[in-house]
């Protein structure tokens, strides 16, 4: 049975534009010639490259090893040779260390891929296997999954929430996954629940995806510990804290993590990747990415190898229009605008959005007219307009006292701002400065 979740305070209702791709089945592109796998694709320390220039690699061969606890390995997306290991353009910034691979076209899987019998494996083995498969949160933030699966003893977890809200406009990657392979999501959730030893699994999906809801309900039928929740269509319903509040009514304390209220949230895409890894031995080398927007020739939901270059995808999908002015890695609300198309698809790339000139927000330096809309809709109940004013004037003590560090950068404030103020940019800057100051204070 599908349960109805509560809402959460605040939020906005942007135009979703999901009709562009919601009905399009997953497509697999042909093999491209060149792949670029950066070592930094997740939150945490970048992986350490272990292959040399000229080395022969197979599909799934480890290219880089984790360099700390909050770090995961990178795998080769296809078979071929390592062309170079150097700084190459990256979606997050000018350039970062990456392994460049020239594909041989054979796509031979690595014969030495580790396998695991997930039915007999211990919890620690499962968790380690998920880490070795390079799995990170697939929703966009790309936080290493095994870290979330290792809650400290003093924080007991009783609920696992699967996040299928996909509240970002335009994106339909999770939607297609839930419609086309709900059984993988459910099975992956089972593995995650086993590792966390939780009795209750909740799956939250926004009710603008009725086909996904019914597919999941069918796949989860007969599992007593699993509830499918239909969520209100409000952005940012898929933000962890808002999702927990909507489903369980628990409020994650300010500055805290979901585990503080006994919850772990995982994206549906992550669950599916976990299943692929433990059951089929496939490390995280591909993901579903929605390629969409008015600017792209043929929008669609693609199964892309991680490391695929955006320009290759663009060429395959019919090129982009001359008016395309913004290319976003992720959704339009929280995604990162990229400076070029010579960058690879990352583990966290849930979408590639091509926006034309007349549909993008052009930020101005208009003064705030104190309309209070941002205060009204802020899902974290902050005062973005006042924080932005203080950041502008470099009054960072005030910025800190207004809880800027609780900002989740969902972008709702800037979305509604009639003065087109760069509120999220102000929040980011305020946050960065406050964190630097706190660190300085801690040192002295």
């Amino acid at each position: 049975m599908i349960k109805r979740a509560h809402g959460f305070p605040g939020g906005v209702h942007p135009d979703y534009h999901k009709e562009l791709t919601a009905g399009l089945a997953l497509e697999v592109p042909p093999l491209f010639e060149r792949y670029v796998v950066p070592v930094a694709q997740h939150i945490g320390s970048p992986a350490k490259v272990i292959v040399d220039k000229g080395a022969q690699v197979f599909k799934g061969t480890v290219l880089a090893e984790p360099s700390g606890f909050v770090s995961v390995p990178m795998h080769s997306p296809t078979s071929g040779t390592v062309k170079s290991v150097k700084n190459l353009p990256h979606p997050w910034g000018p350039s970062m260390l990456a392994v460049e691979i020239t594909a041989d076209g054979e796509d031979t899987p690595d014969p030495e891929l580790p396998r695991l019998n997930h039915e007999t494996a211990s919890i620690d083995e499962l968790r380690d296997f998920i880490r070795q498969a390079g799995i990170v949160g697939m929703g966009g933030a790309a936080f290493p999954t095994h870290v979330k699966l290792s809650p400290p003893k003093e924080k007991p977890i009783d609920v696992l929430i699967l996040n299928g809200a996909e509240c970002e406009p335009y994106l339909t990657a999770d939607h297609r996954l839930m419609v086309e392979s709900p059984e993988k999501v459910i099975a992956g959730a089972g593995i995650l629940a086993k590792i966390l030893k939780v009795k209750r699994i909740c799956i939250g999906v926004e009710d603008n995806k009725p086909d996904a809801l019914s597919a999941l309900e069918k796949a989860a039928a007969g599992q007593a510990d699993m509830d499918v929740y239909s969520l209100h269509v409000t952005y940012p319903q898929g933000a962890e804290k808002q999702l927990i509040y909507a489903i369980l009514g628990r409020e994650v304390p300010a500055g805290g993590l979901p585990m503080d209220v006994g919850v772990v949230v995982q994206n549906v895409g992550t669950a599916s990747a976990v299943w692929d890894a433990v059951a089929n031995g496939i490390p995280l080398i591909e993901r579903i990415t929605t390629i969409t927007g008015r600017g792209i020739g043929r929008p669609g939901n693609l199964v892309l190898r991680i490391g695929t270059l955006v320009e290759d995808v663009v060429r395959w999908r019919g090129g982009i229009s001359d008016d395309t002015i913004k290319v976003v890695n992720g959704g339009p609300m929280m995604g990162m605008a990229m400076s070029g198309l010579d960058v690879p698809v990352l583990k966290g790339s849930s979408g590639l959005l091509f926006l034309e000139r007349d549909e993008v927000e052009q930020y101005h330096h208009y003064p705030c007219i104190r309309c209070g809309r941002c205060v009204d809709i802020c899902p974290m109940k902050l005062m973005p307009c006042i924080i932005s004013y203080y950041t502008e004037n470099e009054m960072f003590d005030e910025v800190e006292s207004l809880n800027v560090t609780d900002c989740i950068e969902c972008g709702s404030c800037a979305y509604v701002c009639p003065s087109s103020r760069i509120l999220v940019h102000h929040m980011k800057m305020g946050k960065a400065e406050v964190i630097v100051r706190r660190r300085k204070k801690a040192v002295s």
Partner: protein
Amino acid sequence: MSTNAHPISHNLLVSASPHITSGETIPRIMYNVILAMLPVCLVSIYYFGYYGIKVLVLTTLFCVGFEYLWQKMLRKPVTISDGSAAVTGILLALNLPPSAPWWLMLVGSFLAVIIAKQLYGGLGYNLFNPALVARVALLISFPVHMTNWIQATPLFSGVDAVTTATPLGILQTAIKTTGSIPPEVMAQVNPSSQNMLTWFTGHMMSGSLGEFSALAILLGGLWLMYKKYIYWQVPVTYIGTVLIFSGIFWMIDPTRYAHPLFHLLTGGLFLGAFFMATDMVTSPVTKKGLLVFGVGCGLITCLIRMWGSYPEGVSFAILLMNGLTPLLDRWFKPTVFGQRKLYEETK
């Protein structure tokens, strides 16, 4: 490999997220406010004909003109097209007596746009509502011209303009001179069904241009609320406070204090509650702050009307609360998500 491998020739645009907008803009808000004031303007033109048109048009032109001149002089970008100067102009016009001479409008527009708005840094930075600053400054400086009320006469009725006092003025003079409400005034201020109807739809007495029809103001106010340009908090608490406060005193002594509905529907309360206290720039940004703001306006209005030396207190009340707005923003912050007690309860 080149760094400009994308198949488009121009540089891409990069900014912080989000990359889409709700399409809401300052001009859109301002033109909606002007639209919402249209019914009131039409009513005032209906009652004052030529006088109404003259005050409305001239004041608006003066305000826009001053803004244009100021920005040209300081070589700032000219922003008259955003409609904010026009809104100030129309609001000021609605706050002037229909008999106002042209120079009074000119001085008022100067005070509103230059002194109360541009000197503070322009739109968004002014602490006080520009139209109200102008009205109060004019009221104090030119009390004769500002209280030279003429009797409202429906358009085309052919009656000459007759000077008369406002309902609130009649009431105050009566109470000051006799200590209670005399019977002939009582007939005017008690809420008989006849009185109620004229007060609500447009009373045939006198007052500022925008004080004539609560109905027309309500129409505009509801439109703004529907469009979410103003929040219900201010008008409801403001009008509610006046209703309750004056109601209490009316119940104590109906011979000394007028009926609450009289307070509600005559004078500038509706205009103030829907169009001036709700001014975004000069009211708090938080819901809690807005509630307190409304209650404060209501209390001060009642205090001035009942015991002050001016018959009308709406402008003073709103200006005083404008001054408190920064403090209200500081005192009544929303509770940050995750800082409520709720967490302990559910766990």
